[in-house]
């Protein structure tokens, strides 16, 4: 006999009700207890322990990594070390990739000339599309190719849950979950991916906190901006090795500030929109396991590399093309780009920035990677992204447009605090299925970014620091 859909549904409802009457409050406990008893019986029958069966090795390591004395210093040192490795290690390959791309561009240019292509086509394809893509690849790929494997190694080793264990008390104070420290760590790589990773937090309230604040951890796409500006303006006068250290120091400082903002916003939300008692805190501390270094490195490099490359083509390329068009189509006697810049300038000046910078952040909504290149395209008003290797010349361009260290600091702060990128917001919507929370995830950081940069700009003037 064929099953009638609606009828079956009704019968199921009835059955559910009947089960409700039959069930007793203690039933579940009994069921789990009996399952456990069965498990114990099975293990007792099939397993023999010839030693304690405990993992002495992990316990010894935990005595160090979660020690009241060394726990926090080790955490901070590891954070610094990962950043230092990433920044120092990325320099050379970045320059090499940039050289390669500009060398290749020479040939492409010749090709276009030979084919007799019109200027606008060359502009869109090479100055917009090609340079946009190659910038992102040469600036973003090397740090990512270092950060992700190093992070994956720490993860596979089993260190990250210890961070959650050490930090939990702080998260509890602000009403959040210790596992948020793990999703934050993931955010250093990519906020969009980190939003997905918040699923490890089982309680909805704490998970929402983790989602709404993840953005205050600078992702890989913003590192480029932060590193370049930190090296140019915060450590510019220092010599080689010290410069790297100083730049790392500035970045660590920014990251700590981002963490502070995370705590503050979590606390504020816990007191207002997301009131409630913490639920569901359980955290497993798995045994430390020596990772298969080669496997982990290869796998995470390949996966992430492909992700970056496809992202570069999908997002940076259209942004490059759009910027080129905006810069080269004129309305009246100036380009559309300049119209936008002039419109945004008063606001920008108030925040210690300028119209170009705000325009770059707006056009960079799809991906943070393109903010700095778009800014430079704007400054040069050629509509084309500059060559990456001209990093020395880069500072001159910025100085020519009235930059001071405060401008650099505020741009870094704005980058750290502003709204999440398009991909991240799409993921937030996917995970929360709520327009309200997605909008708040945009609004909260933006308000904070505006507020903080405004204060810094005013303070710098007040204390006559510039």
């Amino acid at each position, binding site marked *: 006999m064929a099953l009638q859909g609606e009828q079956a549904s009704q*019968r199921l409802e009835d059955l559910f009700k009947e089960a*409700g009457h039959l*069930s007793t409050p203690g039933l579940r406990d009994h069921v789990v207890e009996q399952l456990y008893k069965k498990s*114990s019986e099975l293990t007792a029958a099939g397993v023999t322990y010839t030693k304690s069966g405990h993992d002495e090795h992990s316990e010894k390591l935990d005595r160090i990594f979660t020690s009241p004395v060394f726990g926090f210093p080790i955490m901070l040192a590891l954070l610094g070390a990962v950043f230092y490795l990433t920044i120092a290690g990325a320099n050379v390959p970045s320059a090499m990739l940039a050289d390669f791309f500009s060398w290749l561009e020479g040939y492409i240019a010749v090709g276009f000339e030979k084919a007799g292509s019109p200027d606008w086509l060359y502009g869109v394809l090479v100055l917009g599309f090609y340079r946009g893509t190659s910038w992102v690849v040469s600036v973003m790929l090397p740090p990512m190719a270092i950060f992700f494997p190093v992070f994956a190694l720490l993860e596979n080793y089993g260190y990250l849950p210890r961070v959650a264990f050490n930090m939990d008390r702080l998260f509890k104070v602000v009403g959040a979950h210790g596992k948020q420290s793990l999703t934050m760590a993931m955010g250093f790589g990519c906020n969009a991916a980190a939003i997905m990773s918040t*699923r490890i937090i089982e309680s909805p309230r704490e998970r929402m906190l983790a989602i709404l604040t993840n953005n205050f951890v600078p992702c890989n796409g913003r590192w480029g901006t932060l590193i370049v500006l930190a090296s140019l303006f915060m450590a510019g006068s220092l010599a080689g090795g010290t410069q790297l250290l100083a730049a790392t120091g500035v970045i660590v400082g920014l990251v700590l500030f981002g963490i502070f903002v995370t705590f503050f916003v979590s606390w504020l939300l816990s007191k207002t929109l997301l009131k409630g008692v913490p639920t569901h805190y359980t955290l497993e501390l798995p045994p430390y*396991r020596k990772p298969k270094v080669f496997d982990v490195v290869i796998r995470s490099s390949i996966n992430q590399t492909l992700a970056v490359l496809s992202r570069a083509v999908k997002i940076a390329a259209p942004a490059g093309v759009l910027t080129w068009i905006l810069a080269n189509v004129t309305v009246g006697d100036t380009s559309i780009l300049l119209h936008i810049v002039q419109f945004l300038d008063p606001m920008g000046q108030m925040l210690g920035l300028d119209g170009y910078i705000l325009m770059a952040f707006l056009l960079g909504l799809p991906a943070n990677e393109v903010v700095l290149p778009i800014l430079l395209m704007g400054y040069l008003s050629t509509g084309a992204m500059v060559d990456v290797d001209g990093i020395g010349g880069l500072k001159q361009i910025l100085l020519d447009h009235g930059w001071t260290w405060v401008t650099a600091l505020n741009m870094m702060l704005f980058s750290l605090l502003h709204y999440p990128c398009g991909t991240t917001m799409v993921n937030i919507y996917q995970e929360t299925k709520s327009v309200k929370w997605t909008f708040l995830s945009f609004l909260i950081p933006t308000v904070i970014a505006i507020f903080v940069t405004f204060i810094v700009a005013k303070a710098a003037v007040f204390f006559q620091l510039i």
Partner: protein
Amino acid sequence: MIEQHTIALAGNPNTGKSTLFNLLTGLKQHTGNWAGKTVDMKAGYFSHKDRKYEIVDLPGTYSLYSNSADEELARNYIIFEKPEITIVVLDATSLERNMNLALQVLEMTGRVIVVMNLMDEADKRGILINEKILMRRLGVPVIKISSRNRTGVDMLLDTIDRMITGEISTEPVTVVYDEETEKKIILLEEKAENIFQGRLPARWVALRLLDGDQRLIEEIEKRFAGRLEDGFAGRASVSTIGRSV
């Protein structure tokens, strides 16, 4: 064209489940969309003895009682997508808790292979496991492996193959609860069987209903509602239901 067989990989977190998944599939993986929801459950592919397999790495969970989104996801996959084989990966160094999950899976499906992973670790800690006893008591194949050292994997592949061909049949153990609970289960089981007619494991449904699993009811109704692409217990039944709604 050769038919593709489906396998699901279930297990506690930190059991080396992903290592096994990577070992089996190499780089042939993708993150897919499942049942209309975008979730990051990885699927991968491998072949063995001229047979092709799609293997899905379910989220690592401590239980399958739908306490969290991940648990629900893993549960739904096993119950509604009906993989041909479900491999339950256990951490050999903490079998007791891990066995708990294996028993839960066995309540859902009998087509199970139990894999004791991290055997190298267990050896180091002096934990001896007699898999023959466990195999007899569980009624499904139990295989010791170390995905780190790549031992035992051939045996696993072979077992998968023999399970597909029907050379190995399973007789999964049934956890018998206290008398009072059993009475209730049997009463509900009969009625559930009437509704589902073999499409869902009736005893398991009865247990879930007794536990007040509202989410399961919602999920069943969602999949009932004529959404053909999701399928309700296989295509044939979907069209029957689809037509009648």
